[in-house]
């Protein structure tokens, strides 16, 4: 299966690939060379329609995986899944909406099926996923409560310190540690989904449909 991954760094891309392979239960081949890359959140959202069209019409990609960081954005709530319940400040709603709209507008291409898509949101950053099973307090719920002023907040720099031993890690270390943790998590995806039911759960749900 040929897959494209749109994320915020090559380190994220390498780790997400491992998680996707774990969720699908088979290896994937990355389709695009050079790899797709977004410069943080505003770019991810702006690029998604262009990337989907590119993959559908100009490549033989079977699927696209999009994973962005939530940072301090509004949390995804159950009501957002209801018809008309999408929240404009929720990044998962925005990404899923943009992906669904764009895929809905794709023209069929002879000889190939419609591009499959899967969307995830790392809350607040992918390092939080890496700490699943290592730091009990790092969960989606803890982050949402922290955002509402109810708990001890952990921020991106704290997460980096925990994962990399420094809050200014180089890309080589980010990639090595990310892949290490993703390999560990690929064997315990249920645990990761329980800790991050919205951001990772969404990604895994989408991948179940592939």
């Amino acid at each position: 299966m040929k897959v494209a991954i749109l994320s915020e760094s090559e380190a994220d891309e390498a780790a997400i690939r491992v998680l996707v392979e774990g969720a699908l239960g088979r290896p994937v081949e990355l389709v695009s060379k050079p790899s797709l890359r977004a410069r943080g959140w505003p770019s991810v959202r702006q690029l998604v329609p262009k990337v989907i069209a590119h993959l559908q019409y100009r490549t033989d990609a079977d699927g696209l995986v999009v994973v962005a960081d939530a940072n301090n954005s509004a949390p995804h709530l159950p009501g957002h899944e209801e018809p008309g319940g999408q929240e404009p400040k929720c990044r998962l709603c925005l990404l899923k909406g943009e992906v669904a709209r764009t895929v809905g507008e794709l023209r069929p291409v002879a000889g190939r099926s419609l591009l499959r898509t899967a969307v995830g949101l790392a809350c607040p950053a992918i390092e939080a996923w890496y700490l699943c099973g290592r730091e009990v307090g790092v969960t989606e719920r803890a982050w949402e409560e922290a955002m509402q002023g109810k708990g001890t907040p952990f921020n991106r720099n704290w997460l980096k310190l925990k994962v990399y031993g420094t809050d200014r890690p180089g890309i080589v270390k980010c990639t090595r540690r990310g892949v290490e943790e993703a390999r560990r998590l690929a064997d315990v995806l249920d645990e990761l989904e329980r800790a991050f039911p919205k951001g990772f759960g969404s990604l895994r749900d989408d991948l179940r449909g592939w």
Partner: protein
Amino acid sequence: MIKSVEFKYFKVLRDATLPLSQFTLIVGPNGCGKTTALQGLLCLGGKLGISYASVVSAGARKDTPNASVSPRWGKPWDKFNVWFSWVPTLNPRLQFDTGGKPLHEEDLEAVLRELRSIEIYALDARAIALPVHLEAEVRLASDGKGLAGVLDRMRDNHPERFEALNHDLGHWLPEFDRVLFETPQPGHRGILLRTREGGYSIRAADLSQGTLLALTIMTLAWLPDPPSIVCFEEPDRGLHPRLLRDVRDALYRLAYPEGFEEKRPPVQVIATTHSPYMLDLFRDHPDEIVIANRDGDNVRFERLSDRKDLDEILRDSHLGDVWYSGILGGVPDAP
């Protein structure tokens, strides 16, 4: 570490204080004193001689004020004042006081050694590409000249660093896999890069400017004994935006060696940029960003983290885009 530098009537910096961290990225419009601030540091180390007439702010000479550059140190030299001053009738000179405490010669020598080690790199691809005459101690000049000698020495004296640099080369510039050397004439060294596909050796003079600039920044980051204070004029210049993350890593390797499993002492790094892409990479550390603002005849340096409304302003936006908009200052005046 130098915590800040005060400038008085030093060219465009009439009355300005530049706050510094272990790593500092200065952004601002052309002519706002970024390069001037770095020149001031070079004067402290005695590497740049400027006369009073050249240094004193335009229009200030008629009042014959003194011009000065005064660094403020962190511990253990926080009580130690040293400054470089220019007065109309005397030669420029370095002065110091110890705040009433007895002067320890070793402290003075250590401070002077730090100041003398300051280097400013404004890299020039043509200078980088030049073969060099081999000497026992080859240092990288401010324009990058001497790179072949520095790499040759690294290969011979620190082979593990040279191998690590080659590994970095393959990551930054995947079309190449190794630094090689040639002897264009007896006693000289030149650089070649070997292509990953085909194993062709490309002479430095035939490499792209961006490749040479990237190789030089990479080399600085892997030096076993870098200067203790390093300034970069626009290290992003000539490089693809996707390489900027690697440039940031190289600068951070210098400034925060422990995070990169380096054993050498940290280097204080000061860099300037006009690139919103470069700025974006420092969003998680606004304390490392200084915005230079021109306000009439004066220049004001402001640490980005001092903006109390920063989170509110940035929200979902790129830091570089917000800076470009002018909301954060540090942009050219309207015509």
